[in-house]
């Protein structure tokens, strides 16, 4: 028996020593995120590389699907085993975590490095700041406001590339006659409501959208313009195909790339699909921000850092937060991701024509637009999205009924 214990000791004592010596001066970080597609993985590995170059260890916990990843993060925080860092969207998704005191304040590093001076646009600061302290790191900007158009299709039918939804609707019957699907739309809730918001902002403009989505102003909601958005949305839906329900966004983008469909409304992450297919911006395909007034929406991703009793983890968290906003890391990360950086002093020389359009637009503060989930809880946006999705799929759901149901959500206090 004595011998047995001595064997155990000889095995385990050195092991525990090596662990202890490893931990000093070297930090370990587990990061939960949902970037699993090719381009996304290339982007997150830029963070991992930078972190490892600092002599640290990166533990990658990639979970498919934002919902699943966020669910895992919350479960692990509540279960007492939080990750070092976790991805959320620029939104109200993590407000509860801040209010419950579950997130690490990053104020120390934020004020030391002057984050408030260089984070652009300043709206991003609002997302992360609670009672004067930073609780998240914005890493990029993604915008929904794009129509992706196959130029060949429009050449074939002899029409100019549409710049607004009205122009698109005018040309759609002609495209349909040519045997091409005018509007490629993936029939999943988030795609349907995403497109709806693009239609809404392009038709009624951002100020009105803000008074409805943010201020819950019922007079603005009922002044007739929102109804015209609903009507246009319904008109657009006549031009989709019957294979739409449940189709993934990238399969839908592929239809535009292959010329089976003329146009898709999708966020700027769609550009990656065109790039992978070897197409060139403004030559093979056009990216158009529809409407007379052009907006770029402030979607995107942030990282939060759950509180941990271990002081070493806090050091790692602050170090990582500072790394993520570093201009060199930002340039590499956003070039891989195809998103806009969260500061202006970043090298974006690799940007293509579409990305350049976004970069130019974002310099103009009036063109910056917020999204519903910047002001509203996930429960609100989901309830809203349910109605939009049902409106799209059920032709018997009248505009008047939808208006009443949406008003119900606006006044629900969700």
């Amino acid at each position: 028996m004595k011998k047995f214990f001595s064997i155990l000791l000889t095995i385990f004592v050195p092991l525990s020593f090596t662990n202890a010596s490893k931990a000093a001066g070297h930090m370990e970080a587990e990061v939960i995120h949902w970037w699993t597609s090719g381009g996304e993985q290339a982007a997150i590995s830029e963070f991992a590389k930078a972190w490892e170059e600092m002599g640290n260890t990166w533990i990658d916990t990639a979970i498919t699907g934002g919902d699943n990843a966020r669910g895992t993060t919350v479960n692990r925080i509540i279960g007492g085993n939080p990750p070092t860092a976790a991805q959320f969207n620029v939104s109200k998704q993590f407000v509860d975590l801040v209010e419950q005191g579950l997130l690490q304040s990053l104020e120390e590093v934020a004020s030391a490095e002057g984050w408030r001076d260089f984070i652009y646009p300043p709206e991003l600061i609002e997302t992360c700041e609670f009672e004067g302290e930073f609780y998240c790191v914005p890493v990029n900007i993604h915008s929904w406001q794009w129509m992706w158009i196959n130029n060949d299709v429009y050449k074939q039918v002899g029409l100019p590339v549409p710049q607004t939804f009205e122009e698109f609707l005018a040309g759609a019957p002609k495209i349909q006659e040519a045997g091409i699907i005018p509007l490629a739309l993936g029939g999943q809730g988030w795609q349907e409501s995403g497109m709806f918001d693009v239609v809404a902002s392009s038709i009624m403009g951002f100020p009105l959208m803000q008074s409805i989505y943010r201020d819950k102003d019922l007079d603005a909601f009922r002044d007739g313009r929102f109804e015209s958005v609903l009507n246009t949305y319904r008109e657009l839906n006549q031009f989709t195909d019957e294979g739409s329900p449940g189709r993934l966004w990238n399969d839908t983008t592929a239809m535009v790339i292959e010329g089976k469909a003329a146009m898709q409304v999708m966020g700027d992450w769609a550009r990656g699909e065109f790039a992978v297919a070897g197409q060139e911006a403004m030559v093979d395909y056009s990216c158009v921000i529809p409407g007379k007034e052009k907006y770029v929406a402030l979607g995107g991703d942030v990282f939060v850092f759950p509180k941990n009793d271990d002081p070493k983890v806090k050091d790692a968290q602050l170090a990582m937060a500072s790394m993520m906003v570093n201009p060199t890391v930002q340039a590499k990360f956003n070039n891989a991701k195809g998103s806009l950086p969260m500061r202006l002093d970043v090298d974006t020389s690799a940007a293509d024509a579409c990305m350049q359009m976004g970069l130019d637009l974002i310099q103009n503060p009036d063109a910056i637009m917020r999204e519903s989930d910047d002001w509203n809880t996930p429960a609100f946006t989901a309830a809203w999205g349910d109605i939009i999705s049902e409106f799209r799929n059920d032709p018997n759901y009248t505009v008047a009924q939808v208006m009443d149901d949406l008003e119900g959500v606006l006044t629900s206090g969700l």
Partner: protein
Amino acid sequence: MPFYRNIAAKIALLPMIVISLTVFVGCIIYSFVYSLTNSKLVPVMNYVGFDQYERLFKQRKWDVAVENIFIYGFVFTIGCLIIGFLLAVLIDQKIRGESLFRTIFLYPYAMSFVVTGLVWKWVLNPTFGLENSMHMWGMTWFELDWLVNRDLAIYAVCIAAVWQGAGFVMVLMLAGLRGIDEDIWKSLSIEGVAKWKSYIFVILPMLRPMVVTAIVLIAAGVVKVYDLILALTSGGPGYATTTPAMYVMENFFSRANLGQAFAASIIMFISVVCILAPWAFYEFYLRNKYANN
């Protein structure tokens, strides 16, 4: 029955009883308590009374979910029983290659619902599934748009579910049929009873235990159906094929609306109890009473 009888067995059961009480009953109580709060992303004790229930019953989506679970439960149970029984009867005709057919029909049951869902998603998809193939073969009148038609999508789900479950019912029934005494068949043929009549009026009642087993097993799968629908339609088009279990999961995870999820799961629990209670009352109380008399 005195308490100390079989005391050893009772002690042995104690851990299980403790686990059931803490895990099942404990979680039910926990869910109920938090269904009275406005918990969002994390559970917080912020009492709002029955607001969550009120909101739940106002949801068009919840109505659709409840309606769907009834349609699904009914069609799936009946479909499996009828098709399973028919297959069993056909195989029972002393056919050649019986074991091959048995394997083929039971095979779907070995698959996960996710696989079944994905397979049928491709078959029923109008743009590249069966409909498309038929069109390419020149049969342009052929239409199969169930999956994308909001009124019929739930039946498409039922088809996939029956396809998976019928083989299992077949095996149960076949075992029952094999247990029928040869003499009964002989006397039936002496009486000159038509074969279909003997199956329906004589043999089927004798298979009652098999039918009950099949119904219990199928019904247990109905309430918790989630994976099949998620793979096949993800609740769409719109939310036409959503179910109560999906509603709960959605509110739990993607919508960060815990209070609502708890309220919906409590309603699910109550409805299951409402269906089970009369049966349990009969099984554990009335039957004993009559047996003792």
